[in-house]
């Protein structure tokens, strides 16, 4: 690559990054495909970086928010500015999901256990963090993530039921896998080698299925794997956080 080429990338990158989503789309559409690919991959990298940066800085804020979650579990009234407030009366989401408890949160989402009061089954609802909801590119990624995961059908991959991407609290409804995260499971006690191998094979099998469909998870880690039941006989990716290439 030449410095001139870099300058063209630089120009388009900043214009796209500083423009509105519509302006960005128009700018990228006008440019030659190779330039466009370059700039898109950099924009993507930059958005990934933002999530990473935020993650580290927000720990303190998240601790505070967890206090809200425990209040929710106690059934108390919630303060303003929380995702839960935007969900309507009694924590009923989209008219049929009763929120029960928080299962965890990360930079990209907050997961609740809920009950589908029509079908009488447990589900997991994944919401975008309240402060990310208004960013169009974040919502777009959220939809892409759900779509990617929905394309997969595998015993070790969490099933997507639906996505609700309108309004102030978009969410993905998915199968609620009973168990604990692999991270929690191995935190204090080592697990026997046979079980380790078995889990690794199940995870690899699930990932292979995703790869066959052209989907790359990009954030496989122990916190994103749920080990089903007490014996951990079956592994599942519980929080699909997929990237597409």
């Amino acid at each position, binding site marked *: *690559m*030449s*410095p001139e*080429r*870099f300058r063209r990338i*630089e120009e388009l*990158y*900043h214009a796209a*990054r500083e423009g509105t989503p519509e302006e960005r789309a128009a700018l990228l559409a006008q440019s030659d495909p190779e330039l466009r690919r370059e700039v898109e*991959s*950099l*924009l993507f*990298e*930059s958005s*990934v*970086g933002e999530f*990473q*940066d935020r993650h*580290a800085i927000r720990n303190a804020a998240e601790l505070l928010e967890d206090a809200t979650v425990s209040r929710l579990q106690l059934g108390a009234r919630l303060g303003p500015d929380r995702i839960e407030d935007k969900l309507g009366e009694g924590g009923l989401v989209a008219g049929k999901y009763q929120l029960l408890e928080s299962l965890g949160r990360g930079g990209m989402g907050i997961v609740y256990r809920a009950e589908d009061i029509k079908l009488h089954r447990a589900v997991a609802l994944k919401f975008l963090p309240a402060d990310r909801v208004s960013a169009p590119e974040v919502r777009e990624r959220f939809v892409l993530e759900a779509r990617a995961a929905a394309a997969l059908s595998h015993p070790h991959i969490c099933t997507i039921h639906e996505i609700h991407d309108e309004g102030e609290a978009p969410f993905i409804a998915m199968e609620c896998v009973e168990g604990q995260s692999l991270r929690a499971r191995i935190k204090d006690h080592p697990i026997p080698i046979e079980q380790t191998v078995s889990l690794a094979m199940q995870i690899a099998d699930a990932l292979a299925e995703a790869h066959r469909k052209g989907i790359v998870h990009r954030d496989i880690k122990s916190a994103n794997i749920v080990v089903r039941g007490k014996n951990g006989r079956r592994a599942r990716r519980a929080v699909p956080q997929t990237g597409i290439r």
Partner: protein
Amino acid sequence: MKAWGSGDEAALGRLAEYVYPELRRMARRYMKDEAQGNSLQATALVHEVYLRLVDVNNVEWRGRAQFFAIAAQMMRRVLVDAARTHGSRRRGGAPAKVNLDDSAVLSPSPDRSILAVDEALTALSQLAPRQAKVVELRYFGGLTEVEIVAALGISPRTVRRDWDLAKAWLSRELKRRERV
């Protein structure tokens, strides 16, 4: 340092001759004394050298920024040399994940990520010297935005944009290398 502050540009070169050995000596001593696993923000070292060599009360802002700009360049050399001496090059798989927002860390254990960042940054400097310089100052020297503005004589907006683009570029390059 004073001579340079009062306009003697050649003094800058003489100053560098003091700074580099001082940085290296302190880095060595640090790495020898510290228990494995401990690490030190490289910028802390740069600041220490600054305090040792400079009459802090007597330096104007621009002089300070330029000192750190030079020290950053040298800190990069010290860190890269240290990583090479450890014989850590390309051994033991992919480099550790690099978070460019934290400045470089001086660690007694071999650090492959320093070499990876150094290589990617050298490649970037061929294409975009100014952007690469901003990264060097910030990552290896721990300069703040205001200090970079003073050291390079560019606007705060340019510093922010350069940093943003260079960071995206380098993260992408580092991931590509990891895959190889």
